[in-house]
């Protein structure tokens, strides 16, 4: 049997063969096929051929093919179960891992990803993406927020105010995600709410993807004059490694009539978390009492 993480209201099930997220079932009977994967786009190196002159860089996202290459993962999972939280920990590669976390009374899952340092010994720039696929029929429509304000309708390969000729089927459909992205089949909404501004899209119907990290080897020629290849120096300046990112996003699946309220509620919780302050006190003082 695959692992699972459940609360009083929702259960997330993981595949016994791949170790990856496979299904979501709500207490109210809504059940959604929900598959997750990680893959990477090969950043264009900006060679001099006429059609590929622009490199993917700090300003520009431009994969050199539309293929998203699967990470060669061999998933190791472990489950943590208790009365307050259930977690499934997944180690996908030596540099990609995540925790899917479901709190007792919540109707959504928190996914905590840790990605990096991105290897580049193969001399390929990489833009790391996680894809979440559902069986919802979204017909090319998805929604992204606008600087935390309203969600705006996006249609794949389409602009409402001019006739779009698509040359970049991935980058041309990417949008900024400041607080969330969602899609709908008119009865159920599938939302992802983020803790930071990142890029995202819906390249296939029923599927959302987020770009969680990038490491590039070439400058895009737009003014930075450095490749997007930041490092952290450890111990001394002679030991430097690529960045590791850790972040979270929420996966929320609800009936359409409830989801707008909960998206707003969850976004505000995410952007304004509880602020914790600590103090060690001597028991005999009774200071705080």
């Amino acid at each position, binding site marked *: 049997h695959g692992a699972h993480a459940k609360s009083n209201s929702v259960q997330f099930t993981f595949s016994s063969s*791949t170790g990856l997220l496979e299904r979501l079932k709500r207490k109210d009977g809504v059940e959604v096929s929900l598959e997750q994967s990680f893959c990477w786009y090969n950043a264009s190196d900006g060679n001099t051929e006429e059609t590929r002159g622009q490199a993917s860089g700090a300003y520009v996202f431009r994969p050199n093919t539309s293929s998203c290459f699967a990470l060669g993962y061999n998933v*190791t999972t472990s489950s943590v*179960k*208790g009365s*307050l939280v259930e977690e499934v920990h997944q180690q996908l590669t030596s540099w990609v891992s995540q925790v899917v976390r479901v709190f007792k009374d919540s109707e959504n899952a928190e996914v905590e990803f840790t990605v990096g340092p991105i290897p580049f010994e193969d001399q390929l720039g990489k833009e790391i993406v996680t894809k979440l696929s559902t069986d919802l029929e979204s017909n090319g429509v998805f929604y992204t927020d606008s600087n935390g304000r309203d969600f705006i309708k996006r249609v794949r390969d389409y602009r409402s105010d001019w006739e779009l000729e698509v040359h970049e089927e991935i980058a041309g459909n990417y949008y900024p995600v400041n607080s969330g992205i969602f899609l709908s089949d008119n009865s159920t909404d599938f939302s992802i709410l983020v803790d930071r501004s990142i890029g995202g899209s819906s390249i296939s119907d029923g599927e959302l993807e987020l770009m969680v990290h990038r490491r590039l080897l070439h400058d895009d020629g737009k003014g930075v004059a450095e490749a997007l290849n930041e490092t*952290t120096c450890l111990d001394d300046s002679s030991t430097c490694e690529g960045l590791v990112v850790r972040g979270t996003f929420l996966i929320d699946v609800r009936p359409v009539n409830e989801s707008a309220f909960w998206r707003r509620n969850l976004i505000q919780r995410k952007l304004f978390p509880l*602020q914790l302050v600590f*103090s060690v*006190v001597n028991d005999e003082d009774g200071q705080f009492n």
Partner: protein
Amino acid sequence: LSSDSLEEALAVLQHHDGVSGTEQQHVASDYTKRLFLASVESESLINAALAQLITGKSRLAGYVGRLQMVTNEISNNYGHQAIKETGSSSMNFQQCPLSNISYCPPSEADLTGKSLAVIAYNPLGWERKETVRITVSDYKLDVFDSSGNLVPSQIIPVSQTSTKLRERHLRSIQKPIVSDEPLFELLFECSTPPLGYSTYYVKPSQNDSYSAEHSLIEENIQS
């Protein structure tokens, strides 16, 4: 106490390069330094504000929902008083900006004969019930609310991934890594009023009847 460096940090956070990473490495390093200085300075301000609120000596209570107001009030009118009162009541408040990688020296302290006070401030305008997660060095713990009632809690070992990130951070700031002491995550239920705070106490159990529930861990489902 001042909020001068917070101004510079806000400028960085509103600059397109600071948001998107479209800057050269030496500029990124400069941004990092400014953000760090602001976070340290702001932490002192918040700690001083909370110390005043908790001791009931402050006229700041009505303003607590707005960081800028609090920081301005303290720096302009109450700054020296806040320092004095914080010091005189020997309340040493600390925060943990790296709790996302399970690194939190104050909550990891040895609590023999002591308690850890955890103050949770809710910046939202509605009552909030959430599960708080802190890093601790013991697993025989009880958690109490401010009325002395036992609060449901759960213990989880710190994951290998988080341990690696902790060690990476310690190496980057050239601190020694003590790897033979196990660390745990303590989770407990926390309820906070709108724009207000709640206090909880984490105490080591005097015997083996601790209340923090130990998690069941199923390892290595290999695929």
